[in-house]
């Protein structure tokens, strides 16, 4: 039994989403042309999340992928909330005041973000009031703290990450009179999520990463070939600096128990994450919250379980590492993806596949002979080559889908094997997670013309 190619396509395309930055008067002044994103679940339900939004009160665009663990609650909450925290962190003092006044007097709020969401990307309506109140408290503090300095993006990102994680933790400790919400905030806090977020404003690209998702820049070399530049560091046991950091933060006596079997305290793969209060709270706090919490929480073995060798919490932080990169004309695209992709594909292959896909699409720009001397044979060769390239990508209108097709279906020769693809996609739910992880990908395409123009200005 095999899925037909069209069945395969409908599975692969179910979650695909594309956004093209609109042009005004025929001009796209943004350094971003648009992005393609997609998700392929392995868990049921999927634990990955993705977000994309344009900042409306400052410049720039935010894109992020979030990989949840121990459930999807935390990833969902972060995907809904983090960009608001970042946007607020970036806002100038006057705008914050304006927003606060609007809320105070019940006027309509300035819109802060324009979301670019797939219909399947949802917001939890029940928690919106709670989330809003936390956010408002944050900006009220920012107003009070008014430093008078212009906001640095790096700092804003770090603050936003930390603040949100803090709020998640606090909300869980305080609880909510509404029993549904009370359970929700606990679920959020006890589950975890990594986050890899890019902020693009002109040629300034910032990537803030917490955990083991990854950002990668696709660079086209002068000879037309593709290379990959990492814009994030994985926070896991393979990262020596990260292991060093964790060890530094705890007494020498714990050195051996801190990282076991490449996991934090022998349990957690990512070394940084949102939520996961089991790795952050003191044992007393955990016990108190669990005991006073709803029965569902109490019955859950996982939440009750205290990690072994748990002496000097917190062991985990949501603080991101931020990398700043000045975009150059040869920087053609950025790939943000959860570890589901990186486990199966090398970044060099990712760069090549996306690069060829994007240029293949672009190569549909017509050929004109003009005044050149071209023979029939040369033209024939050129056309044959273009056809071959186009036919390999024509199936997908979305770079992320194309990448997933390769990630899941690649055979040993690096080409998509339909049989393999079909097999992988028809695995029963309970088996799927053993062969592959959730995959979430965002491919951001840059506008080389605009980037080139920026460069010339400088």
């Amino acid at each position: 039994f095999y899925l037909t190619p069209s069945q395969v396509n409908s599975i692969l395309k179910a979650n695909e989403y594309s956004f093209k930055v609109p042009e005004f008067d025929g001009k796209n002044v943004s350094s971003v042309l648009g992005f393609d994103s997609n998700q392929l679940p392995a868990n049921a339900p999927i634990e990955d999340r993705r977000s994309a939004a344009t900042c409306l009160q400052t410049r720039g665009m935010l894109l992020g992928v979030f990989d949840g663990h121990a459930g999807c609650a935390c990833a969902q909450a972060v995907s809904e909330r983090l960009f608001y925290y970042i946007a607020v962190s970036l806002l100038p003092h006057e705008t914050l005041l304006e927003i606060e006044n609007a809320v105070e007097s019940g006027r309509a709020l300035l819109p802060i973000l324009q979301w670019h969401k797939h219909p399947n990307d949802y917001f939890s309506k029940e928690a919106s009031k709670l989330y809003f109140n936390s956010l408002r408290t944050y900006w009220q503090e920012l107003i009070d703290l008014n430093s008078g300095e212009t906001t640095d993006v790096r700092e804003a990102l770090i603050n936003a990450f930390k603040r949100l994680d803090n709020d998640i933790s606090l909300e869980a400790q305080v609880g909510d009179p509404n029993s549904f919400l009370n359970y929700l905030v606990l679920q959020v806090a006890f589950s975890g999520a990594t986050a890899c977020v890019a902020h693009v404003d002109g040629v300034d690209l910032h990537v803030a990463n917490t955990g083991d998702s990854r950002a990668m820049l696709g660079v086209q070399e002068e000879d037309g070939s593709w290379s990959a530049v990492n814009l994030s560091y994985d926070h896991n046991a393979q990262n020596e600096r990260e292991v060093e950091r964790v060890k530094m933060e705890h007494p020498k006596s714990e050195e051996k128990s801190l990282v076991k079997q490449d996991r934090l305290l022998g349990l957690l793969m990512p070394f940084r994450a949102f939520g996961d209060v089991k790795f952050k709270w003191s044992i007393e706090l955990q016990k108190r919250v669990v005991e006073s919490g709803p029965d569902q929480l109490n019955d859950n073995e996982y939440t009750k379980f205290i990690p072994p060798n748990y002496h000097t919490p917190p062991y985990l932080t949501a603080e991101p590492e931020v990398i700043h990169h000045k975009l150059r004309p040869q920087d053609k695209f950025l790939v943000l993806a959860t570890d589901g992709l990186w486990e199966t594909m090398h970044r060099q292959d990712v760069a090549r596949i996306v690069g060829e896909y994007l240029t293949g699409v672009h190569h549909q720009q017509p050929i004109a002979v003009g005044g050149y001397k071209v023979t029939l044979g040369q033209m024939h060769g050129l056309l044959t080559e273009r056809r071959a390239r186009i036919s390999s990508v024509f199936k997908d209108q979305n770079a992320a889908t194309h990448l997933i097709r390769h990630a899941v279906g690649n055979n040993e020769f690096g080409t998509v094997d339909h049989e393999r693809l079909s097999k992988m996609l028809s695995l029963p739910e309970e088996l799927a997670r053993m062969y592959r992880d959730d995959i979430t990908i965002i491919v951001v395409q840059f506008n080389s013309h605009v980037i080139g123009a920026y460069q010339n200005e400088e």
Partner: protein
Amino acid sequence: AAGMFLRLLSDIQWRAAHPKWRRMTSSQRSTSTTAEPQPVALPAQAQVVICGGGVMGTSVAYHLSKMGWKDIVLLEQGRLAAGTTRFCAGIVSTARPVSIELKMAHYSNKLYQQLEQETGVQTGYMKTGSISLAQTQDRLISLKRIASSLNVMGIPCEIISPKKVLQLHPLINIHDLVGAMYVPEDALVSSANVSLALATAASRNGVQIHERTSVSHVTIQKGYVTGVETDRGRIQCEYFVNCAGQWAYELGHSGEEPVHIPLHACEHFYLLTHPLKEPLSSSLPTVVDPDGRIYIRNWQGGILSGGFEKNPKPLFTEGRNQLEIQNLQEDWDHFGPLLSALLRRMPGLESLQIMQLVNCPESFTPDMRCIMGQSPTARGYFVLAGMNSAGISYGGGAGKYLAEWIVNGYPSENVWPLDLKRFGTLQSSRTFLRHRVMEVMPLMYDLKVPRWDFQTGRQLRTSPLYDRLDAQGARWMEKHGFERVKYFVPPGNDLLDLDHSKTFYKPDWFDIVGSEVKCCKEAVCVIDMSSFTKFEISSTGDQALESLQYLFSNDLDVPVGHVVHTGMLNEKGGYENDCSIARLSKRSFFMISPTDQQVHCWAWLKNHLPDDSNLVLEDVTWKYTALNLIGPRAVDVLSELSYAPMTAEHFPSLFCKEMSVGYANGIRVMSITHTGEPGFVLYIPIEYALHVYNEVMNMGQKYGIRNAGYYALRSLRIEKFFAFWGQDLDAFTTPMECGREFQVKLDKGIQFLGREVLLDQKQNGVYKRFTMFILEDHDTDMDLWPWWGEPIFRNGRYVGKTTSSAYSYTLERHVCLGFVHHFDEKTGEELVVTTDFINQGEYEIDIAGQRFQAKAKLYPFSSLFTQRRRKDEVELSGYQRE
């Protein structure tokens, strides 16, 4: 022709003697810099206004002026020959499958050949010949069929071997060829210069030509053309000719009363190269490689090569866009497959340098044939457009026929296959046209086997029984937008690819149709014939009867309830229509005609009926579902369902009664079948259609009833020697020529249309005779099947062509119907065809170059009538009896 120079509002009157004309052709775009002479005012009136200065418009002007008409104005919105004509590849090719198109191309070739001498304008005419290549046996068969028709027209043409191809054209790779057709007299021209030459001659004959004048719309009053409105004022005129090429559709729709001209443009690409190192000779034959979808001609020492790709790009669906036509892009990726085909055919061209890829929109029509003739709604409004990219081949002949049409009321040849009136409003949907032309353009080079059907634009008009029949295995074909059943694939008979099989030999539906025919002969079958055109004519007094008596050759003053088969003849006694008319009451008649008569017959009646508000003509085609019950047991089924006696005494043949069938009352039942078998046609108000069908099928079960399709009907009618209008009969055929004198009542006391000619033929004989041929040494399983258009030879000499053919399951032989002429052996003059002449010949039918012996008959086989007929059926069964 396309308009380009909107910026320039000035106009010059175009004069043949004007020395500037040469510059206009050589520098189409630079004209804005040249000093423009003062525009000459348009005349206030003219007899004829022609819109469009391409090859069509200039050819019509040329021929009209040759026929002595002088008061003609030709308007061109841009420059003469600046539209599709300018871009045309300039190939004059006579190898055309449709006879009338072949004749037009043949005439064009002869015309262009002497045009330079006549006008002094260089036309670039060069007789190069053409080679059509066959990569497959089936392609070779189709070429052989064309070769047969060219040969009998006296056009030199031969089927040649691949080796011979190489001798004629050294660049051709012949290793994948099975043969080819060589037409040595085909030619090349500069199509723009041909138009200019035609314009020059027309201008000398007094035609006024105005460039940069665009027609905004045509004014029509009370059904007659009264004038045209242009951007430079109004011209009153009696005749308007729409030769606007790809803009013809829009121009037709621009007025208050639309004239529907169903055509749609597609991009068409061809390649121009620099000369070869050793420049190609200008006399090198043109190569057509239909299996590779390309044509290749020599061009200024290099080549010009284009084609008809599988995935055409339709354009201007939303209407005219001035900017676009100038900026149409070269699309190399689109041209890629054709370039591959070119290099496969001529590998030696690899190193040849490209000059340009030309994108030249061409207009295509829903059935791949061009559009000419008069609007059915606006008299004096003529059209010549939609050339399916063969404009230069047809230009001369088409212009001639249209000029004859305007001057004489009808052209000298049967042009029904090209007549605008074969289309109605239903083919005018932009979506329909867009989809259909995407099928038509690749079809230009597709292999066309007998009885192929269009696949796009389907399921537009359907019977209410469509789904029921479809569920029972119906396979469909389309006529005038109406879905008709070809045959029914029996359950369990899994012939999935039945519809896809393409063959010139025995088709795989052979046994299926055979069993349907058998059932028609031995039991009873139901055929849904709802597509037929149905009109009602009624009046307050005797106007209806009087008018019909004048318009029809048979006597319609019959008792109420009688059905009469009769021709609707023109002044020359030719069939404009062939129909059955039932007298419903003293003052009302019900008329049934072929499906594609809906527009033509309506227009004919409208034009000929007196303008009398008490005389009402109504098209009721859509109101009735027609079920044909064929077979000896039809009478049993119907009498059980109606509790009415249906025997010959109570319901003789050629009768019409309203009766009940099942619960449904008011069903119009006629004892006619269109095939000669016993049976009835039920005209059922559509809301009762499903009920009556179900009742008939249920009741019929015990009589062995089954569904049947048109292929069974065809076989039955052809073996019975029944002629069908549109296939066998046309406006140039009289009842006397097809053995239907019994349908002509010369002495009915009325000087009906065509009577004089018929009287003369009765006294002096006819010049062609409809004859039935039974193929003798033809092996149904092994030999090529006849189709239509096969040459007929009598004692080794060509005497005519077949018009239809079918396998007769009764005779177990193929039957061809066709016309026999008698050409004088020395002069070629047409002589009277006598019965003896027919009977005393030895006949052969030429199928793709192979001749089969045939027995000629002027009367159907009486032995075919297994059922003893009722005595009053003599007329029905003896359609052809005298």
